[in-house]
């Protein structure tokens, strides 16, 4: 990949420090710090109203922060590098009377791509994504999901180096969600930085190299997904034949029992000393598994129960036509 965008050599696609935005006395974002490495897939995870969209809008220059600092692709003014950015807002929008090809070309033109080239690429993209038959249809004639796909293609038509998606999976059926995930992975493989916000942890867990967990307008955690998971020790599930014995003394004090299973956090000293004690005490090990904490558990631990409940309450939208 080559390019002449300022900050091309900058290791961070986005750097933000202390971003604050208040609306009429209500703090929407209260000091967000972000460091998004170039070429990564980065998730901004949080419940609705947490400040995800406001943060993205500040990063893109749609609204100005009240205080704080941001640098996007090395530029302090986001519009200076707008031609290298693609953006899919949460509230999708296209001109209903435009044909699909024209809509994609227009979105490219807004980012500096000549219309003629935009139309050529639009045809190519539509064909490649199985929407060639809709090229000359007006947006109002397409289903909501198809229109959304057209807008996603319009977000990418100018071949941006940084793509920002705000809740990209909402409104897509399971099949198209899978396609979008594959597309995002493809973009990252080609060196494009992909940032997306979501309230669905599973998407972030599957896709992201790094995440920022946002709750109440603040970012209590930002970093690699593995580091987030490591905030919680791995969980051990032990199944024994014997119910009682000396071996019980070797179990951590906070172990809880569910039937024949014991659940406890992996001891700091590792599993080997425990295994030796269990065997020596004739516990009769039937099964033992060590499960690394999921992002959901990490989210609960980091953002707190309240944020987790809010996230749980937001069921992913039903696929819409």
């Amino acid at each position, binding site marked *: 990949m080559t390019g002449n965008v300022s900050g091309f050599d900058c290791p961070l696609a986005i750097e933000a420090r202390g971003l604050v935005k208040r609306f009429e006395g*209500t703090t929407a974002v209260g000091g967000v710090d972000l460091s998004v490495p170039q070429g990564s897939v980065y998730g901004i995870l949080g419940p609705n109203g947490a400040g995800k*969209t406001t943060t993205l*809008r500040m990063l893109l220059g749609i*609204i*100005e922060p009240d205080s704080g600092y941001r640098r996007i692709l090395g530029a302090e003014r986001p519009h200076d590098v707008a*031609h290298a950015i693609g953006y899919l807002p949460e509230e999708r929008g296209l001109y209903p009377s435009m044909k699909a090809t024209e809509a994609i070309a227009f979105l490219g033109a807004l980012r500096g*791509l000549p219309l*003629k080239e935009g139309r050529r690429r639009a045809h190519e993209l539509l064909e490649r994504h199985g929407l060639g038959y809709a090229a000359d249809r007006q947006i109002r004639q397409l289903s909501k999901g198809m229109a959304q796909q057209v807008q996603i293609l319009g977000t990418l038509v100018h*071949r941006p180096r940084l793509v920002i998606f705000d809740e990209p999976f909402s409104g897509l059926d399971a099949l198209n969600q899978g396609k979008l995930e594959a597309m995002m992975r493809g973009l990252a493989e080609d060196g494009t930085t992909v940032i997306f916000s979501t309230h669905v942890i599973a998407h972030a867990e599957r896709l992201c190299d790094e995440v920022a967990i946002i709750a109440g307008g603040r970012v209590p955690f930002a970093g690699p997904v593995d580091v987030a998971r490591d905030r919680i020790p791995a969980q051990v599930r032990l199944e024994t034949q014997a119910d009682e014995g000396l071996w019980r003394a070797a179990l951590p004090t906070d172990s809880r029992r569910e039937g024949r299973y014991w659940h406890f956090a992996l001891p700091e000293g590792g599993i080997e000393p425990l295994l030796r004690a269990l065997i020596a005490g004739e516990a009769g090990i039937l099964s033992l598994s060590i499960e690394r904490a999921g992002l959901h558990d990490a989210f609960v631990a980091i953002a707190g129960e309240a944020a987790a409940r809010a996230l749980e309450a937001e069921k992913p939208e039903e696929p819409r036509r």
Partner: protein
Amino acid sequence: MNFDLSAPGHRGRLSMLAAAWVVARRDFTAILFSRTFFFFLLGPLFPVIVGLLAGSVGQRVDQSGEAPAIGVVMAEADAKAMVRARDALADRLGGGLPDMHVVKDLTPAEQADPGEVLASRKGAFAGVLSGSPAAPVLTGPGPLIKDWRGDVELIAAEVRDGSLAFWPQVKLAKTSVAAPGDSRSRLRTAQGAQTLLFLLTMMLAGMVLSNLVEEKGNKIIEVLAAAIPMESVFFGKLFAMLGVSLVGIAVWGSVGGAIYLSAGSLVALPEPAVGWPMLVGLGVIYFAMAYLLLGSVFLAIGSLANTVREVQTLSMPVTMMQLMLFFFATYAMTQPGSAVEMLAVVLPFSSPFAMLARAAQEPAIWPHVAALGWQVMWVVLLVRGGSMLFRRRAMKSGPQGAGRKWWRRVVSEG
């Protein structure tokens, strides 16, 4: 997928004007090939029909109430005799004679300059009669006094003895400066131009407003705001609608021109002070300025409103204000050179109307250059202000603050 930004065809960062052009081009073609444009073309038919109906009534009023008059500047006895003779003849002939009023009774030693009288009596007289009944002198604009020559000779003969034995020859003194009668005609030209300007401006500013609200409804505005500066979006929208309106004006102008040419001399329009070509040119420019000024305010309103109801609530005060400023400019037009006219010229929203009226009345060009510079400055300021307002108020997400809830309640409950 290749993500090389230096790939052929990519222009890189768009300048503010290039970005505005992208928006303008989209809006222009979208509107031009829509049903909206068809109705836009038909729109002016209604005011024209109403105007024609009102005009025919007005013309009758005008003919009866505002017949051109001749001012008489003669010795007291001669002046009274002329007026008496005119009235007596008018009774017998049943009208058709020009009205006559005594302007000044001269003492035997006094001399009067009819040209000065003509110029000083603002619009009161179309010509001035001086000299004596035996040797009358009629001063005024060429074509008019030529038409009155016979009438005045008849009245002067009546003063003598009413016989054909002594028939006084009227001497004609053509004025080089515009006569007050011309000023009155020009006032009408200015009024007509102002009204046309106002109707067009209001119609278009309303269209640009609904265009932006529709765009917010389509949720496309965030895509635009993320890609290009908001000023470019506003300028693009304003100029697209201006382009559409110029196409409309070209169509209406062609139709109007064809009607005028086919009607020939049936429609006599008074010549404006700067001449017709210049007035038409200035008319187009002032129309553009009036529209850009009002349109930029309406765009700011559109950025605050989310529904048609909100738009109506918010735009009503602006429309009322614009109407008042239009009336103010119309009033100011009748007082050329006064402080009132100056104020109308300086106030940005009445400036295009006041200046167009001035173009119909005064031949000087430089004030128009200065006024246009002033108006352009205001357009830029308003667009910048509107885009700032948009960034501050329009792009909010998440829960509403108390102020926002209050605002919503105010505009939705009207």
